[in-house]
């Protein structure tokens, strides 16, 4: 292994002249890569091998490895390198990788962070996590098996997330007697598939992670292979991370730095481009302009800072700028929009709920977003586009989405930072999806709006009222319909134009195609929200009486309406009281198990945190409650 020694750790230099070694090390570049591919193709073994060859394994760790290999290893008495990487107890027991492991090594030229990804389909989200920060992917193939479904899936995902450097490592060559013909066939097979999914270029090599062929030096077992060994390729492959620096300047603001009245700086990681004092900038989405005066760091002000650096910048003017804003070159700012087309990768066991409101985080912006029914999902095996109603775990699809506020963005192909986003479930707080924006749907592109002369203000003025949605929420039997009915009666006496939507008039018509699954209940509320919105456009005061147990759904409707027009009314009746009333006998059925998913019994009710109005039906009669509500919404115009 003397060759390996010289590549990795210049022991002689360290011993003789540590200062020049440190100087050399300090100026190394960084390559982040992943290993991926199908189950058992030897990803973890390869990384274990790289660590072992690069002397990153200390004596005490090696002793432990040898003992472990005999105990739980998959290679009999021989060293099982995968055990160096598969660090979780469950992984070692099952001999598989569940989650990404990040490992580190260096050669004379470069430092490496390698993420070992799991091959099992079940853990695709973990593979995608690893891939999202990688500059290069080593896709492994078991030479005995050739291209498998997971090889395709991972290749597709690597390409989707924008990894430009792909290495196809045909592994376990030792098990096919280093057969060139078989190797060539696999490479040709892969090349056809790669072309189909848009991978323009890849570097193939025959290796054995287990035996060490073509890892650090060219192997005598494959004299026909004339390319570089893996390590040399990793050391010399050109990095495209300077490409970001030549794009226009973008700095998503993370935090406003305001230690005292004399200093106001904006902190963030430069996504693309560079910045120096004197540059003209524009703050988005407001569009306000100013000039950069300083780029501040603890080590002194900088003459220039580039993409990839974390900085704090100051402006010449007191322009409004806060977290979520993006500071950009004044003359080439990014777009702002609230409707997009995007590719989504679903990562949660709970499938996408079309129409549900999720948190969307993009750069430093956090907004609410709803996803439409997917246009299609991709079958990674055949590359077919399939029709789909939703996205299940690990599905990849294209869909339109809308955010409740305009966001600053760029297509993912131009900027990972301003084009990549995650979706977070508002109830479980889990990260459920990842997405890559394609482009914004200008309204004109989406729905052709007929310009009308009689707008919502005209409708409202004619009716002499301010349109609103009085959204009653509460348990079954809490008194929503009774009170809403009473409110409508009183408004009617006051000559107001109203309309009451409740389960009966909606479920029998508009929503009769919907059942009571979670997805259908969300869709039910979404449609009610849209109808209520149209009615407010017509100038009406709309009352709705639905249990609407989920905060996320109520917030979704709130977000559809202009500020101040959604009035959430919490009909606050304790479960015992509602259950004791049991007007329709539903609680009894639910308790006996005859009725499933009943709110309050085996399905949660999320009480409003800050409702505009709360009525206590234990202390008030329906008429009193209605009077209370009317007083709270005065004046009506």
């Amino acid at each position, binding site marked *: 292994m003397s060759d390996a020694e010289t590549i990795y750790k210049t022991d002689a230099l360290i011993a003789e002249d540590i200062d020049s070694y440190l100087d050399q090390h300090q100026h190394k570049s960084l390559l982040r890569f992943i290993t991926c591919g199908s189950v058992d193709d030897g990803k973890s073994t390869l990384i274990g091998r790289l660590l072992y060859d690069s002397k990153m394994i200390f004596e005490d760790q090696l002793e432990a490895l040898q003992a472990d290999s005999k105990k739980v290893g998959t290679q009999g008495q021989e060293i099982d390198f995968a055990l160096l990487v598969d660090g979780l107890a469950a992984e070692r027991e099952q001999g598989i990788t569940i989650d990404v492991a990040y490992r580190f090594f260096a050669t004379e030229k470069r430092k490496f962070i390698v993420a070992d990804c799991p091959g099992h389909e079940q853990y695709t989200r973990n593979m995608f996590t690893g891939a999202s920060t990688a500059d290069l992917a080593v896709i492994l193939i078991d030479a005995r098996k050739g291209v498998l479904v997971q090889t395709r899936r991972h290749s597709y995902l690597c390409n989707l997330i924008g990894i430009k450097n792909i290495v196809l490592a045909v592994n376990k060559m030792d098990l096919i007697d280093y057969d060139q013909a078989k190797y060539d066939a696999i490479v040709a097979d892969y090349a056809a598939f790669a072309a189909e999914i848009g991978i323009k270029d890849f570097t193939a090599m025959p290796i054995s992670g287990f035996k060490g062929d073509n890892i650090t030096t060219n192997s005598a077992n494959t004299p026909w292979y004339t390319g570089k060994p893996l390590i040399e390729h990793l050391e010399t492959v050109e990095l495209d991370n300077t490409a970001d620096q030549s794009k226009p300047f973008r700095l998503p603001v993370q935090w406003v730095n305001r230690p005292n009245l004399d200093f106001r700086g904006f902190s963030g990681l430069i996504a693309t481009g560079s910045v120096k004092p004197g540059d003209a900038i524009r703050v988005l989405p407001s569009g306000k302009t100013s000039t950069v005066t300083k780029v*501040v760091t*603890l080590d002194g002000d900088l003459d220039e800072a580039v993409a990839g650096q974390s900085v704090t910048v100051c402006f010449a003017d007191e322009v409004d700028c806060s977290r979520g804003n993006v500071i950009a070159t004044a003359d080439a700012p990014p777009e702002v929009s609230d409707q997009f087309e995007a590719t989504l990768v679903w990562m949660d066991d709970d499938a996408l709920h079309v129409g549900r409101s999720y948190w969307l985080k993009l750069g430093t912006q956090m907004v609410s977003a709803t996803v439409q029914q997917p246009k299609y999902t991709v079958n990674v095996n055949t590359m077919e586009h399939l029709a789909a109603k939703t996205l299940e775990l690990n599905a990849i699809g294209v869909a339109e989405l809308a955010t409740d506020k305009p966001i600053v963005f760029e297509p993912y192909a131009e900027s990972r930072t301003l084009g990549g986003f*995650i979706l977070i479930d508002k109830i479980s707080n889990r990260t459920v999806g990842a997405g890559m924006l394609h482009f914004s749907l200008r309204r004109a592109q989406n729905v052709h709006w007929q310009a009308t002369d009689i707008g919502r203000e005209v409708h409202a003025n004619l009716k002499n009222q301010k349109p609103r949605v009085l959204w009653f929420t509460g348990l079954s039997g809490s008194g929503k319909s009774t009170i809403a009915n009473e409110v409508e009666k009183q408004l009617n006496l006051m000559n107001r134009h109203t309309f009451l939507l409740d389960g009966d008039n909606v479920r029998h018509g508009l929503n009769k195609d919907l059942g009571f699954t979670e997805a259908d209940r969300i869709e039910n509320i979404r449609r009610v929200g849209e109808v209520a919105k149209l009615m407010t456009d017509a100038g009406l005061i709309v009352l709705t009486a639905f249990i609407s147990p989920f905060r996320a759904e109520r917030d979704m409707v709130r977000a559809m309406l202009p500020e101040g027009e959604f009035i959430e009314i919490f009909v606050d009746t304790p479960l015992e009281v509602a259950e004791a009333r049991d007007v329709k006998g539903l609680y009894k059925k639910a308790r006996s198990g005859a009725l499933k998913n009943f709110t309050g019994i085996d399905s949660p009710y999320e009480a409003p945190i800050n409702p505009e109005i709360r009525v206590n039906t234990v202390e008030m009669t329906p008429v009193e409650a209605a009077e209370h509500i009317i007083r709270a919404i005065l004046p009506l115009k």
Partner: protein
Amino acid sequence: MTRTLTHLERLEAESIHIMREVVAEAERPVMLYSVGKDSAVMLHLARKAFYPSPPPFPLLHVDTTWKFQEMYKLRDRMAKESGMELLVYHNPEAMERGINPFDHGPLHTDMWKTEGLKQALDHYGFDAAFGGARRDEEKSRAKERIFSFRTATHGWDPKNQRPELWNLYNAKKAKGESIRVFPISNWTELDIWQYIHLNDIPIVPLYFSAKRPTVERDGMLLMVDDDRFPLKEGEVPVERSIRFRTLGCYPLTGAVESDAKTLPEVIQEMLLTTTSERQGRVIDKDGGDASMEKKKQEGYF
């Protein structure tokens, strides 16, 4: 003009970005400060991240009363220099029962550190805690996310971690739940030393070789740091040129014999050594193969 950032520049930028995200999204963040070299780097990065403001969170030292004297000294000095509030927490039950590493074995770490940490976080209501753990330290740490989600009882579920895409961190959580954040996850031991060297970051002098009183026990060189060290029969402290690769409770931390008196010498020794840094710690060994993973599930950092 474009230029390739060095690996240290990339690591620094990433760590600073992580810290700012936490400050922007968490309600009550805190930095766990253990006074070791990793804490030293983490604190320095925090000062960079928020300069000219002082880092907008306190430092928390979950103390065991058994740290080296020099560590307490540096701790107080750094808190002052950084302008940050220093909170020192002692598990009252461990205090009362006089839990110590000589008489109580693993219970010492369990009560002072694991329990102490959980109590301290609950006591102050911190919902995000920065820790200086690195992925190159140990095989279960190599698997952990940068934002590592903890249940209301501080549990970690390694088989069900949240996906973590690009540099988009999900800090959302329900009441009572919390997040441990590891801003220097991707740094290696060598990166830490080199960064300390380049930035002149103050560290505890115990990392450098000096003559110190020691005794040898179970193949480990222990330093007699104060008179609470119970000498066994026939044991006499011997002056040796030693230093430490890692710092913890002095009765649990093994020294190495060394002449390295400067940072380059320390780095040189580290690079030429053949054993891992955590080998000098008793804590990783008890409990066998998955001991760190288990500790982490129970709430240890």
